[in-house]
C-alpha cells in the first residue's frame, strides 16, 4: 500500500512536470516516465500483459515518434506567444469541465476498500484470462480492429513501395 502511494505521487508529479516544463523534449521524457509509473500500477494490479503492452506501444513506439517530431523543431527560435485570450479561455473551460467530471466521478466512488470475494480473482489481469475474454466475448470487435490495423499496415507498405517509373535518388 505504501508503495502504491509512492508510485501515485510519482505519477502525479511527473504528469505535472509534463505540463510545467518549458522544454518540449523534457515534457516528452516526463510523459514517458509517467507511462512507466502507470505500468507500475498495472504490475501492482497483477496485469502484467497490460504493463508490457503499455511499455511497448506507448513508451516504446508512440513516444519515440513524438520525440522524433519534436527534435526536428527549432527550439531556440523565440516563438511569438501563441496563447491568445481565446485559447486561454478555451483551455480554462476544458480543464474546468474535466475537473468537474472527475470530482463528480470520485464522489460516486466506493472508497471503503472492500473487495468482493465472490467476484475477485487475482488472475484477471493475466494474459490468459485477457485472451479468453477477447476471443470469446469480444471476438467480432477484436477481429474488426485487427483488420483495421492490417489495412493501415498494408497502406504503409504500399506508400513505401516505389512505383516503376519513380526516380531512384
Amino acid at each position, binding site marked *: 500500500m505504501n508503495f502504491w502511494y509512492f508510485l501515485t505521487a510519482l505519477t502525479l508529479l511527473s504528469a505535472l512536470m509534463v505540463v510545467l516544463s518549458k*522544454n518540449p*523534449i523534457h515534457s516528452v*521524457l516526463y510523459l*514517458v516516465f509517467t507511462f512507466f509509473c502507470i505500468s507500475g500500477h498495472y504490475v501492482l494490479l497483477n496485469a*502484467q*500483459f497490460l*504493463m*508490457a*503492452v503499455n*511499455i*511497448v506501444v506507448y*513508451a*516504446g*513506439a508512440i513516444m*519515440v*515518434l513524438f*520525440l*522524433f517530431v519534436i*527534435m*526536428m523543431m527549432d527550439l531556440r527560435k523565440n516563438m511569438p506567444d501563441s496563447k491568445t485570450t481565446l485559447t486561454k479561455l478555451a483551455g480554462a473551460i476544458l480543464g474546468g469541465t474535466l475537473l468537474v467530471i472527475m470530482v463528480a466521478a470520485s464522489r460516486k466512488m466506493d472508497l471503503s476498500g472492500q473487495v468482493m470475494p465472490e467476484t475477485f480473482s487475482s488472475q484477471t489481469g*493475466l*494474459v*490468459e484470462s485477457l485472451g479468453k475474454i477477447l476471443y470469446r466475448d469480444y471476438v467480432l470487435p477484436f477481429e474488426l480492429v485487427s483488420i483495421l490495423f492490417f489495412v493501415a*499496415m498494408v497502406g*504503409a*507498405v504500399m506508400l*513505401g*513501395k*516505389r512505383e*516503376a517509373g519513380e526516380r531512384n*535518388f
Partner: protein
Amino acid sequence: MEITSTLFTAKAIYVGVIFAITLGVAAYSTYFERIIAAFMQDRVGPDRAGPFGILQPLADAVKMFMKEDFIPSQSSKWLFIVAPCLSMLTALMTSAVVPFGDKLDLGGGLMLDLQGVDVNIGILWVFGIVSLGVYGILVGGWASNNKYSLLGAIRAASQNISYELAMGLSIIAILMLSGSLSTKTIVETQQNGHWNILYQPLGFVIFIVCAFAECNRTPFDLPECETELIGGYHTEYSSMKLGFYLFSEYINMFISGAVMATLYFGGYDYPGHDFIHDKFGNNVAALLGVGALIGKALIFVFIFMWVRWTLPRFRYDQLMSLGWTGLIPLSMFNVVLTGTSMLFTVNEGGSNWYTVAVSWAGIVVMLVVTYLYNESQYKKKKLAVG
C-alpha cells in the same frame, strides 16, 4: 521463512553471476571483435597487453576512465549524462527473463530456477525493453547539441521502430507454436531437439536480420555511420560515457544472442541432456545447460562480428525499403504459414515432422511463386521497353 531467505540468497547470487557474465562477455567482445576483424583481414590483431593480448579490455577500460570527460557547453547537461546510463540500463534489463538454465537442486527440497523472473509475459518484456533501448540513443543524440548526433539519433529511432514491427510479427509465429508468452515455456516446448529453428526457418531469418538492426550493427549501423555522420549519436561523447554506449552495444549483442538461442535454438537444451541427467544427476545437467545457452549466445555474437566484417553498410533508403517492403510482408506470410502448418498437425494428430515438412515446403513454394512473379514482371517490362 528459512526457505524463503535461502532461496532469496540463492537468487541474489544467481543475479550477480548473470550480471558478471554479461559484463565479462561484453568486455571480452570488444577484444574478440578486434581479433576477429584482424583475422578476417589477414592481420594479427591486438597482442600487446598480456599473453595474446587478453588484458586488452582492461587496458581499454583504463584508457576510457583516464580520458577527459568532456561535456559540450551548449548541451543539455543532465540529459547528456543520463542518456548513456539509459542505454546501459536497458541493455542490462533484458536478461531478467532469459532462462539461462533448468532448475537447480539446492538440497532440502529447494529448487532454484535459473532465470531472473518467470513472468508469463516474458517475451513481451524483452520486446518492451528493446524498444526502450532507442531512448538512450535518441536522448543522447539530441542532448549533444550537434547536428550529426541528432541525425544519428533520428536514424536510430526510425530504424528501430521499423524493424520492431517485423521482429514482433516473427515472434508471433513462435508464440503460436508454443502457446505461451513465457520464455520458460517456450524453451520447455523445444526440449529434446524439437528446436524452433526446424519449424521456423523463415521466422529465424527475419528475426536475426531485425536483431542486427535493433543492435545497430553492420550492415544496419546507419546511426553511427562514420562516412556520413562522423560518429553518429556519440560524436560528442568521450571517456566512460562513450564507453557506456559501446559497452551497451556489446551487451545488446550478447543478450540478443541469448534471446535467439532461447526462441529458436532450444534455450538450455543440448543433445545428450537425458543421458547426463541420469548419469550425473540434475545439477550437472542444469549447469551444462547454462553452458549450452551461453555457448549458443556466443556463437551468435561471433556471427554478429562475422557479418560486420563481411558486409558493407546499407544505404538508408535501402534499409527502410528492406524493412517495410521486404521483412514485414515476409513475416506476415510466416504467420500464415505457421498457422497452416499447425492446422496440418491438428489433423494428423500431432506429428511434428509433418509440421516441419509443411513449413519448409511453404518457404519453397513462396520462393517459387515470387520467382515466377518476378519473371513475369520482368518480361512485361521488357515488352514495354522493346
